[in-house]
């Protein structure tokens, strides 16, 4: 027998290991503890169109989206027929580089990125730009200084200054239209901010709107205050990236060009425009489990090793079967609890779990009606079979066929009447039902119908408890996503298997005893038996050797005395204290 210490050690290890596996999965794959949390995924496809003049080698460099808070790029792919593709880093910015020696005609290149909305993402590739000393030619310099001075008077920090500048520029005035003719609105804002010694930069963003096609990159202004920055829309003055449905993704954040084509100087599209980049985007709601997998895939690509502790790495078909298997321990845990701790009587140890599993397929009410009906009809037919004095195997086989006929009849009848729910009874495990009928009919014969009702009700109670637990979305989510949970359940079952306390039903069963043992002493005992025996035990433990010898000698002495008074009936101790000790029983 394994010592208790080792047992509890092993159980604790199982428990902790299971918990750690669950936490690991929660952290690495971001599998949420509760189901029902979906994540937002955006596919953004950039389409690059250009037409090189003449046959020349082409080197297309397209800026990759920036790393930014609130978004995690989980995937990127390119589609470009005949081009060599490379991901490169130039001057602190990442690019995808397409190269081809012989290019002619209109060219289309695709770059696709998948973004996961992730509020915990906080990394950013944005760097504070240096201040540029630039002297604007007149009359623009004066106009810029005027706006800067007005804005300065109405602002407290770089951010409020920026919004004041944008507001000033929105006013219809002669100097504003002069400036806006010379500069683009965003570069004008940056120039004004720079002239006021505020770090600012033009950035390119893509607005995320579902099913939008061919959207251009839009200009925004990033305004810095120390290490912090805010993004402003130079046209509206809106501060911060828009959240909600119209989110924006920062694509270029270091002043780097979005697209750079070398070797095809006169790269124009057919319509005469220069090379063009447009974005198409699509929104998906994906399960947080898949999102976690995607995210972990990104980390994996960057070198981290993960063990997939989830069945989602299996093919879909196998997953469905496995999910059922993984639910079973939950039902078993409930059976163990109800039998060991509560003391519910069931017919067959795990029959209730299997019935609960079939309830999962049929629905509770249909399942219950079907179960009771089949067992009831089965018992009636089985009672007739028992008159035939069949051998066990033949009897069980007969019951199985009877159960099949009942299932078939119910299905056919209910289908005829247009009740498709009736068809679901075929989910019941036939062999288990047959054994249940067999066992119950034996109990009926041996212990009466009371016991059958008790066990039947107990079984149904346990099955319903199991069904309620296994039908819970939370439980299904936990079992199918956290394999570590199985270890935790195992350790709980092991611990319960060691429970030596009273069952709940025993508290009721022994209630009269517990009451009487205190109220009515046996015979004329003056000390309660348990305390007398405890005293004797303590005496023995205090001095095992001598007390044992004393008691042994006592026993031997009485035996010797008994031998001397031969002819006596052999009831010793009758001489001393045979006063009416039975009076207690009639109290």
């Amino acid at each position, binding site marked *: *027998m394994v010592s208790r210490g080792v047992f509890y050690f092993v159980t604790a290890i199982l428990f902790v290991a299971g918990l750690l596996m669950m936490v690991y999965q929660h952290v690495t794959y971001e599998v949420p503890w509760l189901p029902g949390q979906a994540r937002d995924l955006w596919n953004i496809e950039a389409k690059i169109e250009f037409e090189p003049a003449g046959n020349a080698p082409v080197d297309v460099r397209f800026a990759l989206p920036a790393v930014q808070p609130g978004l995690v790029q989980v995937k990127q792919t390119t589609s470009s027929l005949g081009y060599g593709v490379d991901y490169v880093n130039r001057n602190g910015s990442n690019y995808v580089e397409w190269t081809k020696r012989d290019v002619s005609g209109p060219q289309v290149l695709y770059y696709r990125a998948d973004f996961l909305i992730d509020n915990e993402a906080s990394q950013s590739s944005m760097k504070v730009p240096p201040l540029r000393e630039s002297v604007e030619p007149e009359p623009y310099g004066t106009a810029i200084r005027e706006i800067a001075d007005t804005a300065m008077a109405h602002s407290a920090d770089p951010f409020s200054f920026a919004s004041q500048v944008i507001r000033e520029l929105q006013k219809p005035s002669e100097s504003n239209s002069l400036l806006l003719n010379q500069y683009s609105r965003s570069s004008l804002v940056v120039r004004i901010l720079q002239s006021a010694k505020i770090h600012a930069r033009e950035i390119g963003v893509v607005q995320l709107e579902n099913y939008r096609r061919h959207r251009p990159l839009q200009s925004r202004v990033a305004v810095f205050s120390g290490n912090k920055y805010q993004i402003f829309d130079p046209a509206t003055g809106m501060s911060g990236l828009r959240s909600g449905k119209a989110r924006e993704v920062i694509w270029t954040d270091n002043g780097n060009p979005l697209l750079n084509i070398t070797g095809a100087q006169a790269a124009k599209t057919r319509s005469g425009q220069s090379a063009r980049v447009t974005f198409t985007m699509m929104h998906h709601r994906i399960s947080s489990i898949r999102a976690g997998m995607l995210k972990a895939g990104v980390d994996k690509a960057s070198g981290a090793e993960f063990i997939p502790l989830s069945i989602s790495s299996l093919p879909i078909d196998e997953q469905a079967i496995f999910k059922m298997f993984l639910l079973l321990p939950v039902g078993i845990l409930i059976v163990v609890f109800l039998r*060991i701790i509560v003391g519910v009587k069931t017919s067959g140890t795990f029959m209730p779990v299997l019935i609960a599993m079939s309830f999962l397929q049929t629905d509770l009410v249909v399942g219950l009606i079907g179960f009771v009906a089949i067992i009831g009809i089965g018992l009636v037919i089985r009672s007739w079979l028992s008159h035939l*004095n069949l*051998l*066990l195997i033949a*009897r069980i086989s007969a019951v199985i066929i009877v159960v099949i006929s009942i299932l078939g009849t119910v299905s056919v009848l209910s289908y005829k009447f247009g009740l498709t729910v009736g068809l679901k009874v075929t989910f019941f495990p036939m062999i288990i039902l047959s054994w249940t009928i067999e*066992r119950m009919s*034996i109990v009926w014969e*041996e*212990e009466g119908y009371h016991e059958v009702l008790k066990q039947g009700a107990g079984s149904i109670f346990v099955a319903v408890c199991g069904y309620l637990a296994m039908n819970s979305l939370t439980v299904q989510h936990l079992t199918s996503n956290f394999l570590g949970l199985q270890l935790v359940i195992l350790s709980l079952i092991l611990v319960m298997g*060691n*429970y*030596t*306390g*009273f069952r*709940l039903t*025993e*508290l*009721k069963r*022994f*209630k*009269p*005893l*517990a009451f*009487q*043992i*205190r109220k009515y002493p*046996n*015979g*004329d*005992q*003056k*000390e309660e*038996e*348990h305390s007398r*025996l*405890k005293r*004797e*035990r303590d005496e*023995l433990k205090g001095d*095992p050797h001598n007390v*044992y010898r004393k*008691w*042994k000698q006592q*026993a*031997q002495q*009485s*035996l010797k005395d008994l031998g001397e008074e031969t002819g006596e*009936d052999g*009831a*010793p*101790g*009758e001489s*001393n*204290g*045979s006063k009416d*000790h*039975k009076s*207690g*029983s009639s109290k």
Partner: protein
Amino acid sequence: MKLHLPRILTRYANPFTMADDGIMGMNTRNISYIGRYNKRHLFPLVDNKLLTKRIAVAHHVATTKLIGTVQNQHDVQNVLDIIGDYHEFCIKPAQGSGGKGILVIKDRNAQNGHFIKSSGEEINNHDLRRHLTNILAGLFSLGGRQDFALIEELIHFDNVFSGFSYDGVPDTRVIVFQGFPIMCMMRLSTSASDGKANLHQGAVGVGICVRTGRAVRAVQFNEPIEFHPDTDRRLSELTVPHWRQVLELAASCYEMSGLGYIGTDIVLDRDKGPMLLELNARPGLAIQICNNAGLLPRLKLIEALTKRQRLTVPERVEFSMEHFGVWMKGAEA
């Protein structure tokens, strides 16, 4: 809801008080006693009455004499040869439960050779054979397993118990732990229990004092009673004769079976004295209710007795009588 809660609670005992009184629950019995002291491979010895009988004979433990066994359908045809000259005998399934399938033949009709049952009804050879076939088919055995039949000599019950039982003659159950008799009881059938000795069906349980073999108290449906509900006999007058012999027989079943925690069922034959009827490796807990005492303090005392294996059977019995008797010995200590 608030009003009902206390009323529900009164139906349940306080588990801490129960533990304090040493009342043993099912889980403790299974883990700490049956699981720890009863080796699994020894269970068939007690579940199969034929095996029990064999080891009893080998260990010179008094048990009813076996006339013969019927193990297959072929033997059924030869049953008259097996029975031979016996006029009274008893046929029982080897793995039967709850006294089912036991056929008691108390005489044979001299003219036609018919068998006379204890009820006085006569059955012929054909009926006897059919009963044996039923036993072989497992009609009376636990879970309907195939079984075989034992033909035993009839026990002539001691008259001391007449009037204490509604139907049949009761046997004495002694719980034996490590060879020490721990607690005893008798189950008396009543009309309420339909002649069955099953306590929760209404049989009367009588706790028997380990020291004297006298009734301690009697309970029916968990409540103390004074008189047998059918025969109106005063239950406190119940005394098991040859008490020391009964206990020694029970105690010797430990060496015989090797099982540390057993229930022994003992019958008293008018002429041959106490005889072992059967053993039970999973004795029930209702004996505590009949004795108005918990099993645990007694079991723990034996467990604390580290050198218990050195004691002989009479010494162990004497020890149990000394310590587990019902009334105090304060006067002589």
